């Protein structure tokens, strides 16, 4: 056996590294935020009405003896936090940011469900940001991520409280190197839309002046598709039989 075998970074870290590089080149700053998040940032500011069925979509972990705090159910708080941070520094839009990190869903785990997983949120805010820009940005991201393959993106109508219009994003990859399960099939890959004017306002900006797009995408899901991983629980297994393959 060799003396010092190189260690391996986690496949999720590799994807985050790659995603950050692609977005950095498009002008996006990596913005982070807390995992234990206030209901204001996780829900209220994002236009989730209180006691509304939309909150049921989230399966939230609430904290004992800490009312008003949750384990974040998405990285979308960046839509509020990033503009706030920039404004506090006196910086006006245009803004471009990605927030990449762990999110939580309070559900039983199995081969396709994990209570802890990773998400990338992207947002661009400015006077002239359009839904066409969202499509162009996602197309470029997935093209670079699946380099060497032919990548197509399509939108379907959807609903999120924090975007209007809201879309579901499907991706189709063609190419010889593409794993068979993925090749030439439309696969749901992200939720996205134009930031709701209420969300723009809650971030401290004037929705009559500024518009923005936002998208959220599961990194574990990309990993599963890209490498043909058969069990999402491997991500948190800390098992080198898995990790050392990357």
């Amino acid at each position, binding site marked *: *056996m060799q003396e*010092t*075998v*190189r*260690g*391996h*970074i986690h496949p*999720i870290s*590799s994807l985050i*590294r790659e995603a950050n590089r692609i977005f*950095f080149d*498009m*002008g996006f*700053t*990596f*913005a*982070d935020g807390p995992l*234990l998040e206030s209901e204001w940032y996780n829900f209220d500011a994002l236009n989730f009405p*209180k006691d*509304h*069925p939309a909150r049921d979509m989230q399966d939230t972990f*609430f*904290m*004992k003896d800490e009312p008003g705090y949750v*384990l974040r159910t998405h990285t979308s708080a960046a839509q509020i936090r990033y503009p706030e941070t920039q404004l506090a520094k006196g910086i006006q839009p*245009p803004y*471009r940011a990605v927030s990449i990190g*762990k999110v939580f869903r*309070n559900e*039983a785990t199995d081969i396709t469900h994990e209570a*802890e997983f990773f998400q990338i949120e992207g947002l*661009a805010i400015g006077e*002239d940001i359009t*839904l*066409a820009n969202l*499509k*162009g940005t996602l197309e470029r991201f997935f093209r670079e991520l699946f380099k060497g393959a032919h990548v197509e993106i399509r*939108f*379907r*109508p959807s*609903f999120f409280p924090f975007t209007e*219009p*809201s879309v*579901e994003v499907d991706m189709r990859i063609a190419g010889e190197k593409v794993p068979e399960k993925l090749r030439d099939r439309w696969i749901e890959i992200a939720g996205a839309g*134009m930031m709701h*004017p209420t969300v723009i306002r809650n971030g401290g900006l004037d929705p009559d002046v500024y*518009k923005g797009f936002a998208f959220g995408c599961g990194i574990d899901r990309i990993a599963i598709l890209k*490498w*043909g991983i*058969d069990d999402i629980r491997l*991500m*948190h297994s*800390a*098992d*080198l*039989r*898995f*990790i*050392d*393959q990357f």
Partner: protein
Amino acid sequence: MKISREWLQTYFEKPLPDAATLAEALTFHAFEIESVEGDILDVKVTPNRGHDCLSHRGIVKELSAILDLPIKADSLRHPAPLEPKTEAVRVTIENPELCRRFTGAYIKGVRVGPSPEWLRVRLEAIGQRSINNVVDATNFVMLDMGQPLHAFDAGKLTHKDGAYSLNVRAAKNGEKMLGLDDKEYELAPSMLVIADGHTGEAVSIAGVKGGKPTGIDETTTEIILEAANWDGTNIRKTSQALKLRTDASDRFQQVISPELAAYGLKAATELILELASGEVAGFIDEYPRPQATNEVTLPLARANDVLGTTLSAPVIEDVFRRLDLSHMQEGDTFTINPAFERLDLVIPEDLVEEVARIVGYDKISPVELPAFPERPDVNSNFYASERARTELTAKGYSEVFTSVFADAGERVVANKVDGVRPYLRATLVDGLRDALERNARNKDLLGLKEVRIFEIGTVWKDGIERIMLGTADSGGVKEISLEPIEASTYDDLPISTTDRYHSFSKYPFIVRDIALWTPAGTEPETVLSIIRAQAGQLLVRSELFDRFEKGEKTSLAFRLVFQSFEKTLTDEEVNAVMEKVNEAVKKEGWEVR
């Protein structure tokens, strides 16, 4: 929500396309379709359209717009006057903020019996049970138009001073009611009931479930039909507290228009007269504050600015026509008066979405963002993480993620669904120690002399959330705070070049070493290829681990790891393989040490 193509067809003159085509039309212009079975579509109506689309009529309107197919008659576009009124039923509402409208019809002389076949088939096709003509009529109208209704047997209510009396009030603490489902529900003051105003007895859990004692049966001859409007949040909380979800509560909790009550009542009344005969003695309508009308304005430029399109005014006008949204156009600005049931249309962006989805998102061409004027900031935490990854992997450490949930910690989750490990970890050490132990057992399989792992992860300690860097190796398990590092750009770091992940065997492995004397200059690879050829598929790992020279001879030692995907290997099975290996190497003239 289950939707029947045949039911939809009743609204259209022209034949509808097949169910698969309808599913595709809805998928790309309205809602996700969970499944299509025969002529039944399972439509996933989004929460913003729960106001108007939890019904066949709602889906009809969508399809009419998407396919640009005219519908024969829209029952919600003709006034539904509730005349004549009757004094024989008196309604009082103690909580008008939670009951915006209460309409009722007093129908005498009905004959309760089985439903006609067409109605039974309709209901059963979408998984509903046929009960009797009166109850089925109320269910049909709910599934058709979206307004839940309830029928009381008037004969089982109290008649006093020439009238029946219904009272909407908060339930009393501990008050009980036997539901139509034969279950007894214990109510709380946060819930609303409809009570028999003469006796005070609860006869229905408002908007959720009717009561058994006043239910319709074959002896019923007089009914009071109720179509009301209940507060969405209140119904949602009641339904959650009682763990009782019904088709009615599902609709009320989405908030529906109080205007709809009259249309639903009228339609159900007519259907009951048709199916069970009888005559209407009169209607009641408590509607203190009618729904205000609303106007939404959309300038053409706004639509194109949001979407990044160059749609013309006639294209947008056509979308509104197809959606049957009454509109006025002044120059390039549209003013919409949404129909009462379209409670989702409030701001211009709501209309932009209508335009985009009806025109089709495929009409939006991708446009890349222009170059950003500023250089993006480098995230100092992420930079520090990346630096740590680079340094540690160079030293043979592999990166793991362990769960943030733990058996101990400072902060605890209140509602963890699986009930185990409810604490948020205050340290990475416990998770890493466990991971080290588990991986150490596999070190031969992994081809490692020593297992070295690290984790960069969040902990909650001393009241704050912080990022720690932990390492675990034969020297122990340690963690330090990850200190942010300021940088002006990210380093160019490698990413995984792996193409495919290969699942690994969950069965134990067996290790065998073999050492050979070979003539000087013998390549280990040559030996390995002979060993591998003999060992076959059970050999999952093989490598040189020792080599030394003695005179003319070279000693080569290999470590062989055997494992099956199907079962736990026995020593005997591996011995048999090793025998074949030994024979093969001896044949080459190499001496097994």
